[in-house]
């Protein structure tokens, strides 16, 4: 049951009106999301509200594209290396408490139109191995998957998400993550979408006492892309890493935005986001660390670095600290530069051909962000993707 819709926010709303009786889950939540979306619009599109959160990223091209919606699922879940329990949102359509459709237009859009998603649960104390979710976009389809991950106390899971596809589709995912006390989620994402596609991933994670969220996203694809991560450290001694690497070329635009909320004492957040920008591409980094009044002994660190491979590439960086506690350690920094001429000469003077030397320095630049990925097989898969990206730049 796929229909061609008109463009813009009005198009998505018309689509919702047509489909709403067939969509699973609480119709009140859907209607509220539609009302919010009507109000917020697509940032950058006509009649949309101005939004500080979307200051650097315009969704006008999304508003000007006609998409076909819905399509069934659009993703595969590989549980062959995992004991996690899996169900589908289509069969168990629960909207969790963390996502904020009232604030975020893409989350409102997802809440309005989500038809499926992967729901993963790991019981207390269980190490459930590795789950892999592959999504495939194609043509001019619009996908709004609604994923959820629940780790019981002391549980462990590695979640690997790989997004690929062909065509000018829209992939607009929302993922809600609850990490129990002492539990550990490693969340590795490879965004390798079609260069014509639109990719939006909004992740909400809540980390209970002593729990850990280790997130790393490698962003390679998409015409316009945004990774938006909200982490709440709600129990003491909780830890979050929100690393990312974006390798862009041509006229690609990729936005990496994160908000970490320190709501409990003694929590740690660490973030290293690297952009490698070629052609006329544009990278965006927005990072906010919020420290609540009770969150004493907070340790927050945020670093955003960009390597410009072309004079026409652009990076926008907006770090923010919002601190209400008085005994905290928070720091942030941002650097922008080109490949270092001395380092390049050093390598070449040792016989390393120029292109290989450049590739080595780009890999080296990314190392700090990638060090979070400790699984050898996943690390080398990501390494190969980076090498392949480089080979395409050099060709």
């Amino acid at each position, binding site marked *: 049951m796929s229909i061609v819709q008109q463009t813009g926010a009005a198009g998505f709303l018309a689509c919702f009106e047509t489909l709403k009786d067939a969509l699973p889950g609480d119709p009140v939540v859907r209607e509220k999301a539609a009302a919010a979306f009507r109000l917020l619009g697509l940032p950058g599109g006509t009649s949309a509200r101005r939004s500080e959160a979307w200051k650097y990223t315009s969704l006008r091209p999304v508003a000007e594209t006609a998409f076909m919606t819905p399509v069934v699922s659009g993703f595969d879940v590989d549980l062959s290396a995992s004991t996690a329990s899996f169900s589908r949102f289509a069969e168990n359509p629960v909207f969790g408490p963390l996502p904020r459709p009232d604030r975020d237009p893409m989350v409102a859009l997802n809440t309005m139109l989500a038809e499926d998603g992967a729901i993963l649960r790991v019981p207390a104390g269980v190490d459930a191995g590795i789950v892999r979710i592959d999504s495939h976009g194609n043509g001019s389809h619009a996908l709004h998957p609604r994923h959820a991950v629940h780790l019981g106390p002391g549980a462990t899971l590695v979640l690997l998400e790989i997004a690929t596809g062909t065509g000018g589709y829209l992939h607009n995912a929302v993922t809600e993550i609850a990490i129990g006390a002492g539990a550990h989620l490693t969340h590795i994402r490879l965004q390798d979408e079609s260069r014509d596609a639109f990719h939006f991933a909004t992740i909400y994670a809540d980390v209970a006492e002593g729990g850990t969220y280790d997130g790393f996203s490698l962003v390679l694809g998409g015409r316009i892309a945004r990774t938006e991560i909200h982490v709440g450290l709600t129990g003491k001694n909780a830890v979050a890493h929100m690393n990312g690497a974006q390798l862009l070329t041509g006229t690609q635009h990729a936005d990496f935005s994160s908000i970490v909320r320190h709501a409990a004492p003694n929590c740690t957040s660490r973030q290293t986001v690297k952009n490698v920008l070629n052609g006329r591409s544009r990278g965006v980094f927005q990072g906010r660390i919020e420290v609540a009044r009770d969150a004493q002994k907070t340790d927050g660190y945020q670093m955003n670095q960009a390597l410009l491979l072309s004079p026409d590439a652009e990076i926008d960086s907006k770090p923010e600290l919002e601190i209400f506690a008085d005994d905290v350690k928070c720091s942030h920094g941002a650097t922008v530069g080109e490949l270092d001429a001395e380092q390049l*000469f*050093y390598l*070449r003077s*040792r*016989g390393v*051909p120029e292109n290989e030397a450049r590739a*080595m320095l780009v890999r*080296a630049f990314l190392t700090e962000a990638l060090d979070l990925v400790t699984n050898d097989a996943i690390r080398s898969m990501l390494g190969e993707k980076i090498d392949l990206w480089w080979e395409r730049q050099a060709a």
Partner: protein
Amino acid sequence: MLEIRGLAASIGDKLILRGIDLNVPDGEVHAIMGPNGSGKSTLGYVLSGRDDFTVTGGSVLYNGLDLLDMAPEARAAAGVFLAFQAPIELPGVNNANFLRTALNAIRRAHGESELDAVQFLKLARAETKRLAMPDDMLKRNVNVGFSGGEKKRNEVLQMALLRPSLAILDETDSGLDIDALKIVADGVNALRSPTFSALVITHHQRLLDHLVPNRVHVLAGGRIIRSGGPELARELEKSGYAGVLAEAA
């Protein structure tokens, strides 16, 4: 055989080398001495191909090849090696990986088979042992967090592995204690053969006690103002450059 004729080079608007003539026959070690700012390091950079210097005149032939026309990596493949005065740090690049990449690039250029990780480590460990370097220097990032002496030894390690036929040592002795100095000199002496030559840039006689040169040249104001045997280094050590400079003026 290295043949430098009338070599002139500048950086920006500033002329640094003002016509260098120098022959280094195969099998010989020549020392380059001279006051600060005389162009010694520039000579090393120009020979190895650093592109922020502009060659404004002269020629450099190495074994009949026109060095000035070659990319830095091609010069390295032809046997040229510059030991940097201030070795560059490469954060995120593992030293062993760096050394193996360099060695394999040069082997490839020579039509030799590449070494795998195991073969390479065996070779590298033998050299680190000979240079009295701790094993973990191979695991660390290139020159990151290395002491001054460790960086210089890492240069000598690269030289030992890459086995150049023309080594240019730019103040490799500075910042080294006497034991390290001897290790560095031994490292170069081990490479000495009828097909190996070296240009040793130094301020001190000390290194030349261990690494005895065939010839000593004094570089001042971008020109070689005097050349002589090993005794010239001892004379300079005793009476400084003032006498030589006055004589040349």
